[in-house]
C-alpha cells in the first residue's frame, strides 16, 4: 500500500511537472481563463442585465465550469502521448506498484485543472465577484468544483485511451465541449433563448453544474420562467450527473487501459 502511495506521488509529480514545462498547457489553465473572464465581464457585462444581481457575479461560476470541462483536453493529450510514445511500456517494465500510473495521472491532472479554477476565482475576486452565504455552503460549492474537475479529467483520460492521436483528442473534445458550454447557462441566462434552444440548454448538464455553483456561492442563478426539474434542483442534478459519469467511466477506463497495455 505504501508503495502504491509513493509511486502514485512520483507519477503525479511527473505529470504536474509537464504543466510547468509546456507553456501552452500552463496558458490553458492560467491566462486563457483570465482573458475569457475579462472579455465576458466587460463586453457582455455591459449589455446583459441579470435579475437579482450583477453580471460579474453571474459570470464567474459559469466560466469556472467552462474551464473545468475544457480541462479534459490536457489529460486526454497526455494519455494518448504516453500510450503512443512507449512511456507507459517503459514504466511497465519497472517494479512499480500496479495502478500508480493511473492514480498519479488523475491526481496531477485534477490538481492542474483546479489550479486554473483557483486563478479564475482570484480574477473574479479582483473584478468584484464574491461568494455569499455561510461557510459550509460555500465550501460545498468548492466540493462541486472538485467533483466536476475529477469527472472531466477522467473523461479526458478515457478519450486519450480510445483516440489514436493528440489531434484526435483535441478534435473530439473541442467539437463536443465547445458547443455544449455555449448552449447552456454558462454565459447568458437561458430564459431569453428560443423555446427549442432553451429546452436543450435546460437539459444540458453544463447548465446544471453552473447553476449548482451559483446556488452554493449565493450568486444569481437567473432561472427561466417555469423552470423544469433540473433547474429547480441544480445541485442534485449536477452531483448525480457527475457521479453517474464516474461510475461508468472509471471501470471503463481501467478496462480500456488494461486492454491497451496487454497483448
Amino acid at each position, binding site marked *: 500500500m505504501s*508503495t502504491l502511495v*509513493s*509511486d502514485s506521488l*512520483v507519477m503525479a509529480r*511527473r505529470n504536474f*511537472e*509537464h504543466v510547468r*514545462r*509546456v507553456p501552452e498547457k500552463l496558458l490553458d489553465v492560467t491566462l486563457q481563463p483570465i482573458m475569457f473572464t475579462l472579455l465576458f465581464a466587460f463586453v457582455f457585462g455591459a449589455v446583459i442585465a441579470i435579475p437579482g444581481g450583477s453580471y460579474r457575479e453571474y459570470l464567474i461560476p459559469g466560466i469556472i465550469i467552462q474551464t473545468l470541462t475544457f480541462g479534459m483536453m490536457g489529460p486526454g493529450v497526455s494519455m494518448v502521448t504516453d500510450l503512443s*510514445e*512507449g*512511456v507507459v*511500456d*517503459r*514504466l*511497465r*517494465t*519497472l*517494479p*512499480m506498484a500496479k495502478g*500508480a500510473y493511473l492514480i498519479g495521472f488523475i491526481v496531477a491532472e485534477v490538481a492542474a485543472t483546479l489550479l486554473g479554477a483557483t486563478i479564475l476565482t482570484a480574477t473574479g475576486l479582483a473584478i468584484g465577484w464574491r461568494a455569499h452565504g455561510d461557510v459550509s455552503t460555500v465550501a460545498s460549492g468548492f466540493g462541486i468544483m472538485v467533483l466536476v474537475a475529477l469527472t472531466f479529467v477522467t473523461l479526458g483520460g478515457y478519450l486519450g485511451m480510445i483516440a489514436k492521436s493528440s489531434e484526435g483528442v483535441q478534435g473530439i473534445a473541442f467539437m463536443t465541449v465547445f458547443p455544449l458550454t455555449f448552449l447552456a447557462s454558462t454565459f447568458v441566462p437561458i430564459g431569453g433563448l428560443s423555446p427549442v434552444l432553451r429546452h436543450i440548454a435546460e437539459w444540458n448538464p453544463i447548465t446544471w453544474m453552473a447553476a449548482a455553483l451559483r446556488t452554493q456561492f449565493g450568486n444569481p442563478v437567473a432561472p427561466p420562467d417555469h423552470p423544469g426539474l433540473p433547474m429547480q434542483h441544480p445541485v442534485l442534478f449536477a452531483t448525480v450527473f457527475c457521479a453517474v459519469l464516474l461510475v461508468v467511466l472509471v471501470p471503463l477506463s481501467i478496462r480500456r487501459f488494461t486492454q491497451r497495455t*496487454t*497483448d
Partner: protein
Amino acid sequence: MAATTDSNVHGGVRAQGLGKRFGDFWALRGLDIDVAPGTVLGLLGHNGAGKTTALRMLTTLSRPTEGSATVAGFDVQRSGHDVRRNIGVAGQEATVDGLLTVHANLVMIGRLSRLSKAEARARAEELIVELDMGEFSTRLAKDCSGGMRRRLDLAASLVQRPAVLFLDEPTTGLDPLARNNLWATLKRLVAGGMTLVLTTQYLEEADRLADEIVLLDHGRVVAHGSPAELKARIGGQRFVVSFDTSEDADAARIPLAGIATTEVVIDPDDATRVIVPVAPHTSVVAVIATLDGTGLEPLDLQRRDSTLDDVFLTLTETPTAEVASS
C-alpha cells in the same frame, strides 16, 4: 514469490518453445534460448522477424501464447514482479519522458525502482558521470539529440543495476562514432557480469557483441550458434563475381551454381555482383570455367571469407526475395 525450484533455472535467460500469436498470425514461434549469466545473446533479423515480440515476452510486457521463459531465475508469467526487479529494458524508441530533464528522468525511474529519494539522486548522478551525460543533465529529454536520448535510455535501464539487460535495436539511427561508444559501454557492463539480450538488424553489431546469435526470420528461428559457428555452418569462403549488367549477373547464377556449396545469391548492395559460396581451396579457374560457353564475361573476381552477412543472406528469405522481384 520465490524463484522456481527447477534445477534448469539460472540467473540468465532461458526460454522453451516461446511463441506469440496475434489473431491467426504467429509473430514468433518455437524460440528456445539459454543465455548463461554474464553472456550476450543477439537476436538478429529483419523488421517483422519477431525480435521485438521475443523481447516483449521476456520483459513481461506481453504474455506468451505458448512456451515458457525464466529471466534472472524468475518465471516471466508467474513472477512478473520479481522479473521486473531484476531487469533493465530499453525499447526501440527512446521511451523516457520528453518533458523531464535528463536528471529528473533518472531520479523518477530510480524512485519507481524502489530507491529512496537520496539513493535515486545519487544513482542518477552516478549514471550521468558513467555514461558521460554531464553536459546535458539539466536539458529536457525532448531537446536531446538522438544519440543523447539513446544514452539516457540506456542509463534509465541501468538505474536498478539489473542482472539482465534487454535492448531493442540499441544503435539504430546512431552515427558510427556514437555506435562505437555504445558498444564499448555495453562490453564494459557485460565484463562486469551483466547478462545482455539485444536485438539488432546489424550483423556487425551481433558479430562484435554477441557470444551467441539467434537468427530469426518471419517468426521462426532459422539458425542458432556463436558467430564463428554460424559462419562455419554456411561454408568456408565466397567468391564475389562482378558483371557489366545486372542481367548478366542474374543469368550467371545458373552456371555458377555448379560449383556452389549453397545457394548463389545476388549481392543486395550491388545487383551486378554475384556471391558464390564455395568449398575452401576452390580455384579461380574452376569459377571461370563454369562460365565457359555461356557468353557471360566476369569483369572481376574476388575471394573472401564468409561473413555474418552471408549467413543472413543464405538463411533468411527477405533479401533474395527482394532481389528476385526487382
